[in-house]
């Protein structure tokens, strides 16, 4: 394992630890919801809460398992270090993630057509930065062909926004 810092955990180990802790928090909230909102019934007529109690309990166990595995067991020497993108690669990734998130948010507002045009512009530019003319033509071609395929030919009902 690469770069064990003073805490004794690699970056990947810390990430796994964080997921385990998130899992613990989730299971506590889940069990609390189960206990307060669902009918337990009896063992002979099990209610809606029985199975969630079992699943929630298991979630506590497996989350603890993930946490303990990192805190107690020695790290696996064959484990590959966490590879996160840097520099231009990282900017590109964040840009694409941002575009995808923005798509989900904006489609309610702008409707399918405009969101598609805007996100295609962003994606084409992020993946292969080049002249604006080329980017615009590529993005419009992608949007148009998608529109024709799904709206005109397949007649899929797609979200309409305020402008369309």
């Amino acid at each position: 394992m690469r770069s064990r810092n003073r805490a004794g955990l690699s970056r990947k180990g810390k990430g796994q630890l964080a997921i385990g802790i998130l899992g613990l928090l989730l299971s506590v909230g889940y069990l609390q919801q189960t206990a307060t909102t669902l009918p337990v019934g009896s063992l002979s007529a099990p209610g809606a809460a029985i199975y969630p109690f079992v699943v929630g309990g298991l979630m506590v166990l497996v989350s603890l398992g993930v946490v303990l595995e990192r805190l107690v067991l020695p790290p696996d020497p064959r484990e590959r270090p966490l590879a996160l993108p840097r520099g231009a690669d990282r900017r590109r990734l964040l840009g694409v993630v941002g575009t995808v998130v923005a798509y989900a948010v904006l489609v309610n507002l702008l409707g399918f057509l405009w969101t598609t045009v805007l996100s295609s512009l962003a994606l084409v530019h992020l993946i292969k930065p080049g002249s604006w003319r080329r980017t615009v033509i590529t993005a419009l071609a992608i949007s148009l062909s998608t529109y024709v395929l799904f709206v005109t030919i397949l007649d899929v009902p797609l979200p309409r926004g305020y402008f369309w």
Partner: protein
Amino acid sequence: MDPINGMLYGLSVAVTPVNLVAALVGALLGTAIGVLPGLGPVAGAALVLPVTYTMPPVTGLIALAGIFYGAMYGGSTTSILVNIPGETASVMTCIDGYEMTKRGRAGAALAVVAIGSFVAGTLSVIGVMLFSPVLSNIALSFGSADFFALTTVGLIVLSRVTGGSFARAMFSTVFGLLMATVGMEGTTGVRRFDFDMLELSQGIEIVPVAVGLFGISEMFFVVEDIVTGPKPLVVKLRELFPTREEWARSLPAWVRGTILGFSMGLLPGPMNVLSTFASYRVEKAVSKRREEFGHGAIEGVAGPEAANNAAATAQFVPLLVLGLPFSAMLALLLAALMIKGIQPGPLLIVQHPEIFWGVMASMYVGNVMLLVLNLPLVGLWASLLRVPLQILLPCIVLYAMIGAYSVRNSEFDLYVLVLFGIIGYVMRKLDFDLAPMILAVVLGPMIEKYMRQSLFLARGDLGVFLSTPISRAIWGVGVLVILIAGLRGLRAGAPAPVAAED
């Protein structure tokens, strides 16, 4: 219906025009999905899933099965031509397949794959005819406690077999089970964990989850590390014919691969992947030309490809007869059946012979179509590899969005898609296996149903879960798997992951 009549009946179902078209479109789409980067077979099938809701169940299932084996074929094509495995089952094909390409035998390698898939498909269909009725008869004596044991232990074994740390694999599994409890539950109709949101009260939709975990996250992996691979060669039609020697060397490898793949495919786990590793080792061990392996030995292509195909066919037996999917892809097929209100299980052969035999026969017909169509079309598949990423990736994003939205015309599902895209990316970076999550989402409701049924029938006696010899045996296996996993984990850390996802 005895197996031979069943198969004949299945053929009559599979060759109706609409089912032939479904198999053809599925197989071609699947091949394209297997060839293109950024959209694996699981995400591709998930996108097609909502389209199949409008079809008769057997037609939808035939189309999805077509995507399944088409994607395997597509994955092998890229392995051979550009040394990029389209999916995990074709990793082994890269080794000798790409070497053959470098020596100018790409055409022969592709032909060996296509013919090998056909041979394996033919032999496996016979195997299925022999095994399914037997297994189905055994399973007819299963009660709900046995099915509870089978599904639960099945999930445990599956998350174990995919490799990696046991704790992390179980984390994915239980997280999937937890997601499956959201929404109205099947037995008493109580709404759970919906926070008074209409979308959540209908449960978490599988399509955006699967496309997010396997499609969007994969796309993130592609954009963070853009590499321009080698340009695929142009393969001419007349280069496709293997020489006499290549035939002679491939034939026994096909047969060995098929037998190995079929027997492994009946066991739980992503056996279509693992059987390719096993087959490669077997071929190398029995070969007189061991030194050729890694330098373009045709057996190294023929064996694993036949094994892959045979295992994939065999996996349909536990899927249809026991309702147990052994991979994320098969979990989607199970979801397609359950949406139609069809319960896979031992009664399926009797109650829905058109589905069981029709799908089996269509896989055979589909393999014939792939053989006839894909060899001449190999130039087209290779040219798909030349589509630049700045066109391909925006299209994948748009199709994923439209696919996720159109399942129930819900903008909420777009958030689910994006959220699971990010969850999938983070979890894969941190070595969490995603396949068990999808399996658990699909199997969760069944596990709950079996559990509550057993308790109800036994009037609350917890002993019911171990009341039959079958359930005791199955739980015994489960405990054994957990013990072995625990011991291994304590001794030397977890074994290296074999297959990240299927």
